[in-house]
């Protein structure tokens, strides 16, 4: 498997279906692990979804003193192992994206695992499955590349070209790469 979670923030319509769907994943104990926020509701209705970036060198796992956060062969960063997690919440501070959540009742952290019980069988995670706007997609590497080229193409169609100082506008998305260990 060589699939990518591809996020395009500007497509998001703020419906929060991804959050509702996250709760529906079998291993998720009816608790959502992703979030959707307004950029600034006073200014506009623009929202954005955020889920685990499945970092190659995850900050959450790095700062975990108990070594409780495991990474699968495919590169998925799992929730802390229950028997190891000591409830110190370092991971919740360490993650730059605010992903690990904390259950104060069980004193354990839980996080987005990309619906591991689905994705390992090549079935899209719940959030990407339901997202009505395709703000979240679960796609092949090739499809991702095509989407990147498409952007350039559209900018050309519209006669837009990056200038000094606005180059960043041309790469507004953020995407997590889900690779298998060999690649």
């Amino acid at each position, binding site marked *: 498997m060589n699939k990518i979670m591809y996020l395009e923030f500007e*497509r998001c319509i703020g419906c929060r279906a991804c959050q509702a769907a996250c*709760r529906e994943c079998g291993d998720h104990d009816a608790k959502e692990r992703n979030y959707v926020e307004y950029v600034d509701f006073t200014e506009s209705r623009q929202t954005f979804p955020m889920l685990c970036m499945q970092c190659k060198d995850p900050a959450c796992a790095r700062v975990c003193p108990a070594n409780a956060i495991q990474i699968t062969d495919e590169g998925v960063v799992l929730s802390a192992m229950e028997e190891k997690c000591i409830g110190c919440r370092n991971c919740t501070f360490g993650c730059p994206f605010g992903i690990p959540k904390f259950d104060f009742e069980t004193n354990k952290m839980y996080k987005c695992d990309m619906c591991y019980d689905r994705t390992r069988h090549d079935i899209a995670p719940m959030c990407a499955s339901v997202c009505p*706007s395709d703000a979240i997609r679960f796609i092949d590497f090739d499809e991702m590349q095509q989407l990147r080229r498409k952007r350039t193409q559209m900018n050309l169609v519209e006669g837009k070209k990056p200038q000094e100082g606005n180059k960043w506008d041309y790469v507004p998305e953020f995407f997590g790469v889900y690779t298998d260990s060999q690649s």
Partner: protein
Amino acid sequence: MSQFLVKEGVKNQIRKGEKLVTTHCCYCGMQCGMHIRVDEKNNKVVGVEPRYDWVLTKGKMCPKGVTAYQTIDHPDRIKTPLIKKNGKFVEATWDEALDLIESQYKGIQENYGKDAVGVYGGVSMTNEKCYLVGKYARVGLGTRYIDYNGRYCMSSAAGGFNKTLGMDRGSTLPWTELEHTDTFFMAGSNTAECHPTSIQWFWKAKDKGAKLIVADPRETATARVADVHLDLLPGTDSALANGIMHLLIKHDYVDNEYVQERCNNFEELKDMTAKFTPEYTSKLTGVAAEKIIKAAHIFGKSPRSVVMFARGAEQQTSGVDNVSLYTSMALLRGQIGKFASGVATFTGQGNGQGGREHGQKADALPGYRKIANPKDVEHVAGVWGIKPEEMPKEGVSAYEMFHLMQNKTIRALHVICSNPVVSSPNINYVQDSLEKLDFLVVNDFFMSETAELADVVLPATTWAEDEGTTTNIEGRVIRIRKVVDPIGESKPDWEIMSMIADRLGKGKYFDYSEPREIFDELRHASKGGKADYYGVTYEKIDEQDGVFWPAPTEDSKGTPSIFQERFATEDGKANLAVCDFRGPSEVQSNEYPLWLTTGRVVFHYLSGNQTRRVDFLMEQCPEPFVEMHPELASKYQIENGERVKLSTPRGEMITPVKITKAIRKDTMFVPYHWGKKLAVNQLTSPALDPFSRMPEFKVCAVKLEKLTK
């Protein structure tokens, strides 16, 4: 036969000990495909799985759809009939409830005539049930007074389409074509929240460079990314459409050949729109003239465009005019009946399309037949096995039924699948009208605000406990499957109606053992009508991803695109709309200086009787709020989150403020999904469109007050 439908190569997660049942969402007109997870051991619903291979929605769902299954085995379900004794509901057997209904209906009808018992239906249920509500009223009860909640939803679209195109199918094209459209002109539709899964098609088209023009007083998620956002004053759509057509004519964007060949009234339209210069239009609508001009050029230049609208344009006293005018924009451009082009309304309720076709409306019979037309009556009476003379006459519209309760013309009412004390305008009056009834029966599966007023509540099933069909936003007839057996003693509405009809001595007309038999009868009843279902079968729906009506013959595959050659009017030509701007029924005054408009949020559906019981949805949106611009808030010294008072001559409410620049400075917005003290419909205006009898939910003059601490 397996009830799990899946196309080759599509993978779904099926957990051990579970099975999937293929169906569609129970809420809006998108009717998103889904599979429901059932535990095989105890036959309980445990969750939802995306239906990736459903052609229109591709596995996508909004949060209502994702959580819809949670309403099935919900602790609040009404599981037995309830009879009110001394102001309190007590559980009863079906026999007790039916005994009481029988004696009350019979008594009232003997003393005051057949018409003293009315029926108030709804369209969030299958075609089979919607069809039967019409027959139940006319044959079972013999009453002329029947209407339904679709009057508040689709009636203006229906009126406008009938006037201009001669037939009311919500979309003239299948929506899978929308990705090839070049320009969308959307008016009065917050589609990102009200039909979220439609967004995939608009964004797909946008990826290819499609343009988007959005007319809305609020900067909705679609307006935000639109090429032009026409931020019009509520209630001014007819001026805007006339203004755009003025420019289409002026700049030679009219498809003359098409108009010549296929449309009437062009000269009259030209005369009417002559005065709607950008300046004049701008004055009426509050939209900058440049934006109107820009929109007209984009729309005029586009080779393939779709004009779309929803309740924002329709729930006005000029709703029918608005729909006719917007439709005429598409006609001037020669778009209707062509690939990836046309006109469409966003159907609000799950079966808002099918439910309005088969005779729940005061003046209509199955297949869009008319009760005023003797030929139509003869056909339907034939199918029903009654004499044409026995067919009751035309009744009155939903809101007008409440006047008849006030003056005691209607003394008993049976509400099926609706919650009018939340969803009607001016609900203080509506509640008073229902309280004046001698006898009220309500079918529901949750205790709605309307059910609370009832003398008898009958436990209906949810959508997942019965078979049937619905007709989606496109006009595609699709299949709803039974997932589990009815919970408790609940029964599907068709069975309830049949039992009551039986008690009234009409059992032989309602002898059904399953919904399929009702559908078969509907096929014959609609045969030869405009909404012709004769060629639709359950099997065909499965084989070909639904069937678009009309399907007039047994071997018909249905009609995805309509009006390709001729329109459904008598002369086959479309009637361009010639309508002046009339303005809303209310005007601002010193006392009520601001505008109020209402609508939905993505987390709730209609009166909220279902969605207000789902945890996730309530966590996201537990109560109504009023959206206002920071400049307006500042004028009244109001802060974000503060509670304020809104009032109109009809009622008042106190609600927290959400401040955002994404709305006009003179307009406030409140969602309508709550009842009683939290209901914005205490405030809304009951003024009706003269043609469709649609109330003007979307525009009223309102007073805003800061509460003293």
